[in-house]
């Protein structure tokens, strides 16, 4: 086996992590370069992306545990002996320091996390709104598209895509972010003002899959 083949094998092993967006920038760039020069590798990457989509869908259909899990847990915790307070470790103290900038009460911690996510989505949302309001006339009183109306996909942007790349991608396609990101970094994106037949939506998804800005895309309602 030549060193070139060994290198290629190493790259192929990284494809699942590249699709999931968990490679560091250096490895992600190596994989991207290999995908550009090797059509067979690119074909195999499409298989990996199919697997990624199927795994997400499979897990998302599993639902959530009932309230019983939490009730049981806290009943057991309440039965535990009380513990004496101890000091914080160094990393926790550093984290605590930065945590001081968020609302003090722990009850608001979840809300703060949600807010951060909404703000992040908002940055993309505002960017898209600005791009969509350029040329044509719009009334100031109502949105151009009613909520829930249109054709939708879920998209996770590629880790190596910059904000500039995403802006151009959204502008060029006239897409709107309507929700997200979820815990998995997925955005719900309106890709058409009216609903599309599933064959058309699937064809669009297939086309979007080849865009380097897109890490993962699938049709949704």
């Amino acid at each position, binding site marked *: 086996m030549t060193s070139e083949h060994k290198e290629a094998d190493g790259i192929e092993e990284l494809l699942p992590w590249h699709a999931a967006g968990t490679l560091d920038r250096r490895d992600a760039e190596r994989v991207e370069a290999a995908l550009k020069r090797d059509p067979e590798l690119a074909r195999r990457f499409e298989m990996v992306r199919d697997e990624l989509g199927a795994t997400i869908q499979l897990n998302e259909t599993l639902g959530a545990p009932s309230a019983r899990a939490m009730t049981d847990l806290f009943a*057991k915790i309440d039965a535990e002996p009380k513990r004496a307070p101890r000091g914080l470790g160094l990393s926790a103290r550093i984290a605590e320091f930065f945590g001081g900038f*968020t609302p003090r009460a722990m009850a608001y911690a979840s809300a703060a996390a949600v807010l951060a996510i909404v703000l992040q989505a908002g940055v993309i949302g505002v960017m898209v709104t600005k791009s969509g309001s350029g040329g044509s006339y719009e009334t100031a009183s109502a949105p151009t598209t009613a909520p829930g109306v249109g054709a939708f996909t879920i998209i996770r942007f590629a880790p190596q895509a910059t904000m500039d790349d995403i802006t151009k991608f959204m502008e060029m396609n006239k897409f709107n972010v309507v929700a997200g990101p979820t815990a998995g970094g997925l955005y719900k994106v309106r890709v058409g003002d009216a609903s599309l037949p599933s064959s058309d939506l699937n064809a669009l998804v297939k086309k979007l899959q080849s865009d380097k800005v897109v890490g993962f895309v699938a049709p949704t309602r």
Partner: protein
Amino acid sequence: MQTSSDEVLISRIANGDRLAMQVLFARHHVRVYRFVLRLVRNEATAEDLISEVFLDVWRQAAKFEGRSAVSTWMLSIARFKALSALRRKPEYELDEETAEAIEDHSDDPEVTLAKKDKAALLREAMSALSVEHREVIDLVYYHEKSVEEVARIVDIPEATVKTRMFYARKKLSELLKERGIDRGWP
């Protein structure tokens, strides 16, 4: 950002902060549940196990050293609990999902293919993988864990993580082929 917050929560939990435990639970319990459920394939057992996982987090918070993300640490606890449960009751392996897969398996591949679309067959094949292969695929694709994090959770070398993922995907291709889909790989 979330990783740091998780560390703060763990520190507070180590001091007996019940509210911090509620926040950590709210933040992670669904993913931990799904990870466990995919391994044990029994909802009631998975619910029991996540209570145990978070109880361990409560008890061991003071020992958490921050060498991995909190979510990685919790998934490694969850994995240990799930595999222990499987060893105790191997019948968890055969549930409705598996039974359905076996049933579909008896069809002629062409009939199966006609019945279901490719994505559905792919999900079905994934459900028919071994625990070991399902686990690595879920950790990489759904839980978005890096090679290093998977190695830490599963307690195997990083090179083995890559090899295991490769063989899991290869097995997936074989299962798809049995269902009438030839991916032309490996």
